[in-house]
């Protein structure tokens, strides 16, 4: 019998763990549904011949799919060990709850990066097929992946604070309702929605290109990043009793970024 002595090291536990968690997050059944729906949305954008739809595919396509599904998938990832009865084994492992939480916060970037890659690929296709009247700028392209990051971080935060199974469903419903209410608003209120298309449908009801909604896309991305950082700070506050001051400071900065970004995005 061959025995392999494995020298334990505390370094890099979170990063090694994050790789596995990122893979599990990307391939979670809820996420696979989201990725499939995103592919359908992009295909529709490609064949529709409608520049309003095409523009909206880039700015909001990934927000709904897989962005909303990220909440469910991330929540299930966080609560997985407790649901499976693995907690007693994981809790006595040398890797701390904080390291596991950090791994999840790192893994949360994976769906956002994949969404960014898909968005860039779709954008390239739309450029090559001359589908735009007005091409989206960098902030337009980045905002949906940032919203995906926000959905994942929100799911992680909810999993840490409210592990009940119903929580992500309630959150997804609330978020969709929130977006719908804001979309129906006026005076720039709609810009506070994470699903902002920027393409104005105009009097022709989207049959032809009309204009971009007034506002500042870069500041909108900053606003979304502020919300992401708020979720991360709330998660870290719960996981790391030793670093509560850091969490509070990060949360304060996050609120400030969200507030300034939210104000600056307005026309």
């Amino acid at each position: 019998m061959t025995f392999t002595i494995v020298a334990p090291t505390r370094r890099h536990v979170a990063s090694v763990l994050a790789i596995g968690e990122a893979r599990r997050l990307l391939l979670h059944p809820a996420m696979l549904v989201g990725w499939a729906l995103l592919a359908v949305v992009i295909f529709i954008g490609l064949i529709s011949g409608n520049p309003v739809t095409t523009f909206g595919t880039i700015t909001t396509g990934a927000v709904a799919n897989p962005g909303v599904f990220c909440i469910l998938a991330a929540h299930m990832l966080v609560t997985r060990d407790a649901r499976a009865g693995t907690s007693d084994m994981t809790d006595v492992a040398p890797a701390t709850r904080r390291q596991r939480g950090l791994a999840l916060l790192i893994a949360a970037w994976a769906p956002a990066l994949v969404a960014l890659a898909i968005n860039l690929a779709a954008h390239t296709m739309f450029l090559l097929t001359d589908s735009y009247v007005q091409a989206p700028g960098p902030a337009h392209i980045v905002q949906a992946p940032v919203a995906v990051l926000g959905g994942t971080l929100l799911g992680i935060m909810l999993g840490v604070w409210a592990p009940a199974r119903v929580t992500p469903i309630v959150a997804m419903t609330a978020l969709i309702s929130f977006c719908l209410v804001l979309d129906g608003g006026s005076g720039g209120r709609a810009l506070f929605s994470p699903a902002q298309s920027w393409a104005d449908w105009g009097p022709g009801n989207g049959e032809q290109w009309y204009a971009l909604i007034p506002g500042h896309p870069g500041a909108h991305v900053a606003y979304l990043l502020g919300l992401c950082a708020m979720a991360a700070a709330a998660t870290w506050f719960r996981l790391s009793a030793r670093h509560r001051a850091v969490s509070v400071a990060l949360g304060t900065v996050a609120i400030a970024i969200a507030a300034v970004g939210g104000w600056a995005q307005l026309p």
Partner: protein
Amino acid sequence: MTTIDARDVVHTYGRVRALDGLNLVTDVGVTGLLGPNGAGKTTLLRALATVSSPNSGHVRILGHDPADIDGRLAIRRTLGYLPQDAGFPRGFSAFEAIDYLAILKEHIRASARHDEVRRVLALVGLQDVSTKKVRTLSGGMRRRLALAQTLLGHPDLLVLDEPTVGLDPEQRIRFREIISEAGVGRTVVLSTHQTEDVAALCSHVVVMDHGRSVFAGTVPELVAQARDRVWVDDQRDDRANAVYRLGDGSYHHIGDPPAGVQLVKPTIEDAYLLLAGPGSDASAVV
């Protein structure tokens, strides 16, 4: 060095004193905990595995204080723990489940970690199902999978809560082989209701009842507790602590024998029932 030194340990759940001034000292070798349901075995093992902290008492494990953060980490780095109700995410493969726990046990380098995962899966005889999802494994296979994760990294201390539950006789023999190998040069503490497992495996045995240790010693010393207190008779004598009918129609009695009865050689089960069974010496004290 004494591996576990626990003195006057008290652990309460509300008004229930699950551990009521328990004392336990163990060294290298296999120690078996016997006791009825509710005796406090699982509470004790959870405390030894640093899952929970007792309300009071002195506990040292491998020379470390589990109440101290650094001490707890030092214990966890050399601990293998099998909980009573161990489960794994159903969507994980057997390999993935052990690999996940190996990362949490700070096995960082992928190639060495994967070798280690394959080693422990082979030890419990699951190498051929390593790619199968946990949800497709039988209950016995899942129990062996849970046992496999305790063996990661050759821990100095193994804490096993009812490890043989759900195992068929062949698997139990395999388990005994694994544990007896693991018990060479390191400490194994296991709880079980199977007295034959204790007789086969343990160099040291502790009988618990009502949160206390009512016996601590070797298996022969435990069996000796029942010497001259086990008899067989054609008539049932309800004054005995425990009575059961044998296949030949006679009755097996454990307790204080009346004069003139046929005494028989006691087993570890007789001794256990005498100490912690219904109408036992311990329950009479309590």
